[in-house]
């Protein structure tokens, strides 16, 4: 009798436990994913004195006719809101969405050029204090207003925000741009001595394209680096080995050789002599021969000449971009300050880096080693 009662209490306990487990999922916070407005990308800009939010929201129910089992996020819908200040624009946004806002899925935040020129610090601080935003949200500056950019229909028919994010990630993987997220930007702003760079994107025709790097000083956009200037910066800054193809002419411009060049080692040594900051950059490049435009023999001497030619070319690029940062921007966009601080912490406390950097002597030395000429033998003897 007693035993059966024990079994009964055990069963009751188990059933109660099961119910408690099943019913208390998420407590008060349980909310189905369909009941949320999931934003995947947003942009902010200033148009005619008004702040403008453009948001792309994920569409969870797919359109008819869309391929089943599509692994990429389908195109979302677009919401435009605005107001005299950031708060009013946000309120306007919440009046325009049907369901509660969920910001944990935002992949990229875009700043319109007008807005970026005015300064992004206030907005970045705002994002920092909204719990939902991930610190890994990518950031970029857009040439067109985000309203235009986010409404661009991407040809592969995936979400525009995801498209831009993927583009930045894949380009930064091969060292052609810098991926900077909210956490990085906050870190740079907290270090008052330095400037930083954000990817710069725009629209050409119907396509969204990567254009270069936006230079941010005191959290304000000051210039855009394009072409060789951007390349010089990337040889120095990209964390993944930056890989570029450089076409080097032979003597007398008879032939062109294409090399894949990447920075293998970057050494930054700093000194403080005669009240002047000296920064020595020692960069070792590796180069592999991609192909010759016209198939010709290559001698050992040629290889040496090519090494020097590549070094000179990259050195010039780096020197130019450094010169620009010192003379045009007067801002340490390479974050040399951190290296100086590490190597001479006591001197760093005494000097004003912002004033010292434009006067600093920066020596660049680039050494190249051609590691491979590929599997084709240009020196083969063709006797027969």
């Amino acid at each position, binding site marked *: 009798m007693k035993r059966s009662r024990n079994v009964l209490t055990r069963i009751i306990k188990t059933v109660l436990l099961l119910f408690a487990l099943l019913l208390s999922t998420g*407590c008060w916070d349980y909310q189905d994913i369909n009941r949320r407005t999931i934003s995947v990308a947003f942009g902010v800009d200033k148009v005619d004195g008004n702040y403008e939010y453009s948001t792309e929201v994920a569409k969870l129910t797919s359109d008819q006719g869309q391929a089943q089992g599509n692994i990429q996020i389908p195109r979302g819908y677009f919401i435009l809101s605005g107001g005299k200040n950031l708060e009013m624009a946000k309120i306007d946004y919440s009046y325009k969405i049907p369901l509660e806002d969920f910001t944990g899925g935002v992949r990229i935040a875009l700043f319109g050029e007008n807005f970026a020129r005015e300064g992004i610090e206030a907005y970045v601080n705002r994002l920092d204090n909204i719990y939902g935003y991930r610190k890994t949200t990518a950031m970029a500056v857009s040439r067109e207003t985000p309203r235009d950019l986010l409404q661009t229909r991407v040809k592969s028919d995936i979400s525009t925000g995801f498209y831009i994010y993927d583009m930045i990630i894949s380009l930064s993987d091969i060292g052609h741009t810098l991926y900077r997220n909210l956490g990085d930007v906050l870190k740079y702003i907290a*270090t008052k001595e330095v400037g930083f760079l954000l990817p710069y994107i725009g629209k050409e025709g119907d396509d969204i394209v990567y254009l270069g790097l936006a230079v941010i000083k005191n959290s304000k956009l000051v210039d855009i680096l394009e072409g060789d200037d951007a390349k010089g910066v990337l040889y120095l800054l990209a964390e993944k080995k930056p890989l570029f193809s450089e076409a080097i002419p032979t003597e007398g411009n008879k032939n062109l050789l294409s090399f894949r060049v990447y920075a293998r080692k970057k050494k930054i040594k700093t000194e403080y002599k005669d009240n002047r900051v000296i920064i020595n950059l020692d960069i070792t490049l590796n180069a592999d021969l991609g192909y010759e435009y016209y198939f010709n023999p290559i001698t050992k001497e040629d290889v040496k000449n090519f090494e020097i030619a590549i070094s000179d070319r990259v050195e010039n690029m780096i020197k130019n971009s450094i010169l620009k940062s010192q003379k045009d921007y007067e801002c340490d966009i390479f974050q040399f300050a*951190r290296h100086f*601080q590490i190597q001479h912490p006591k001197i760093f406390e005494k000097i004003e880096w912002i004033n010292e950097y434009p006067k600093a002597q920066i020596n660049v030395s680039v050494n190249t080693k051609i590691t491979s000429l590929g599997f084709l033998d240009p020196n083969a003897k063709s006797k027969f």
Partner: protein
Amino acid sequence: MKSNKYEILTNRQIALIILSTIVGYGILILPKNAVENAGTAAWVAVALATIYAALVTYMFTYLGYMHPNMTMPDYSQKLVGKFFTFVFVLIYVLQHFVLFILLVKNTGQHISQTVLVKTPTPVIIFVFILVAFYAVSKNLRVVALVCEFYGVTITIGLVIICILLFSQGNINNMRPFLGTYDIKTYFKASLTLSIPFLGMETLFAVPIDKKNGKKVFKYTTIAILFIGFLYILIVESCISVRGTDMIIHYKDALIEVVRSVDVVQLEFLRRLDGLFIIIWIMAVFTTVIMYFYSTVFLLSKCFTKISYKAIAIAIMIIASFCASFIPLDPPDIEKALNYTSYFSTVTIVLIPLILIIFTRVKKHEKK
């Protein structure tokens, strides 16, 4: 007072009780406090604080070892008499009860601010206390088992998270390793780290038996040194990811740093915050049950006529009401925790020292 028939714990259990009690709420504020006062040399300050903690823990272990199979109320009565024992016990009860409530309240607020936004905080607090009560009501051995199991999980989890954070960090952020200040600053900085190292005073409610032998010193010291190592890992991994300039702005730096990385290689676990919050809640839970247990145990020593369980229920009800309805905002809790940590100089240094002196004197008399 009650006769002393205690459940005896193994050395490993005692070590893990110390570890899981000390590691808890403090790990959130640790990086900010350490970096703000010692810059990139934060690890030096943490190492110094570990040495103090090891010394203090040695005192507690010594008292337990010298009075085998007794807890503080038992031997204190022999050493300083009934009245002073009563005063001492009340001081500890007060401190542990206050810490217990502050920690529960703070954790509840944290959870409701971050994960369960719409769930009322009193509900979270009540569930937390209810579960803690269940463990405490089963007496010391169960508490020790929970600490043993959770302690190992917390340690492994935190080490894995730190390694993952390091993998996303940059060594340049951690340099210069020895900082720019002089040694005085580091000593000063190490004194500000008392909150993350609080918790060894709960050893007063844990009896040490003759069977434990001298090895118990080794175990408790290793536990503290390991905590120091874990704390250094936490601080340095935070610095490596975000740099000192940014960390000083966040009161809960560790959560902020964990949320700011995206370990792409981990696929569905790429966002570490879920993992971290589970481990952190486990860590706080063990701290809370040890303070809860210690409060109940010491009270049951004072009021021998009331049963242990009755006191546990009473404390649970009072604590739930206090934690839920005393209007304390996060800044108030921070202040209160700071005051309690100042007060802890009495509970972790002064009272043990008095008891040790009396023990030595009594021993000398016998000779």
